[in-house]
């Protein structure tokens, strides 16, 4: 059964697109047939992160409006045979999306793929609401800071009221993915702790992605972090999160700062 998963957050810049690409690639590596759909019409980025920006011909809006067929707009990843991209239009805006159009595209994708990952735009307007509208599951990407957590809380409220599942009296399965987690700053109390975030959001945790140069590096070369350097800390954290999405039980690793020699000698004083 195909699963529609929306990657959303409310706040911008927390890592929705990075996470969509990384989770999509990780799921594809596990043998699932995956399509990642960019809903950020007018500000598309997913094609860049996947390194497919030079192969975009048709896009989501063309399909929604019936100008192009779905098969014409889908772009197959060069590295993974079962990873596909449905890019957004850069020249249009979110008003070009219609409820009926999105509904029919999603229904069409459901027949072709195991996973449909919708990369939501920031905000709570049309683009974000349509991205979550037909979701079965949701990954709420949150940074360990108050503004991001509050926006995530808002989005969870919308997932519980504005989605088709919610309107039918069912529940969208929700997971919190904490990104840009800096263990050193967390130890100094400069960031919200994992416990605080989970207490505020009252939603199960999917994974903790450590703050890392590898993420930026992978984005710049147009490769999902789970493909670019599979042994890096963020890649492993994303792969674990993808396995949890598949229903596996994987022990949660809270990233810890590797202590230097001096720290190890002096550092008994836990913060």
């Amino acid at each position: 059964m195909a699963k529609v998963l929306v990657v959303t957050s409310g706040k911008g810049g927390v890592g929705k697109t990075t996470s969509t690409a990384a989770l999509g690639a990780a799921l594809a590596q596990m043998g699932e047939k995956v399509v990642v759909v960019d809903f950020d019409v007018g500000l598309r980025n997913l094609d860049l992160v996947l390194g497919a920006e030079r192969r975009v011909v048709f896009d989501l809006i063309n399909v929604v409006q019936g100008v192009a067929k779905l098969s014409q707009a889908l772009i197959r990843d060069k590295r993974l045979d079962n990873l596909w991209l449905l890019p957004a239009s850069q020249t249009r805006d979110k008003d070009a999306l219609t409820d009926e159009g999105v509904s029919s595209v999603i229904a069409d994708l459901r027949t072709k793929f195991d996973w449909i990952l919708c990369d939501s735009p920031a905000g709570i307007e049309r683009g974000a609401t349509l991205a979550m509208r037909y979701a079965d599951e949701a990954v709420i990407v949150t940074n360990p800071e108050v503004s991001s957590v509050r926006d995530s809380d808002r989005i969870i409220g919308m997932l519980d009221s504005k989605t088709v599942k919610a309107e039918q009296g069912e529940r969208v399965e929700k997971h919190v993915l904490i990104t840009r987690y800096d263990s050193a700053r967390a130890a100094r109390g400069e960031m919200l702790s994992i416990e605080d975030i989970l207490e505020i959001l009252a939603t199960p945790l999917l994974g903790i992605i450590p703050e890392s140069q590898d993420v930026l590096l992978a984005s710049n070369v147009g490769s999902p972090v789970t493909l670019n350097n599979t042994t890096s800390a963020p890649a492993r954290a994303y792969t674990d999160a993808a396995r949890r999405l598949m229903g596996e039980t994987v022990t949660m690793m809270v990233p810890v700062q590797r202590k230097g020699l001096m720290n190890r000698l002096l550092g008994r004083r836990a913060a």
Partner: protein
Amino acid sequence: MDAIVQPTRQLVRMRGRSYVAFVFCPVVPIAGWLEEIDATLARSPGFFVGKPVVLDLSAVDLSQTAIAHLVTSLEQRNIRVLGIEGVDAVHLTTSMPPLLTGGRNCMLVQNEPKKPEAKPKPMSLLIESPVRSGQSVVFAEGDVTVLGSVGSGAEIVAGGSIHIYGTLRGRAMAGVNGNSAARIYCQKIEAELLAIDGYYQTAEEIDATLRNRPAQAWLDGDTMKITPLN
């Protein structure tokens, strides 16, 4: 030798008992009056079923055959006449219901099923899930109870008191309809704003020592008091 079995004599015991009967008072023309009965039956077909009926003929002057005809007409409508009153005994034959006298008026007790009363409006609202940022719960009729937390940027508006069993991080406005006796209770106070009957305090004004503790807020005259619970 056969014993002669004497039949034991049974004493006939008489007891008095009174029943309430419907009294029909036919008026002329009888045909028109019967139509009225038919109309009643059309509205509620079982209306006379199993109820004793007495004919009071004092308002009309009917011959023996007319009375017989009236009784059979009623029987055709499944109305059995228990007795007749207000008529001379000579007009009645033995095949007719007996003559009754000495009836007294009484109130009829209607046994119709009572209409289910409109449910009284609930005086409290229970919310079992967390109230998320941006959500607004308005319940002007009474108390609001939240089992989860109230997120930053969410608000609860109640006509009565507000009870929050999680952390209150948003706004709580109690007693909005001028109920100054309303209070706000929460398991952990990190509220952005508390208001009772229009008097309010913002996060800045709430004593920092209260933060993260169980607390209640109430009105003392026109000042809002916030004190720790237990």
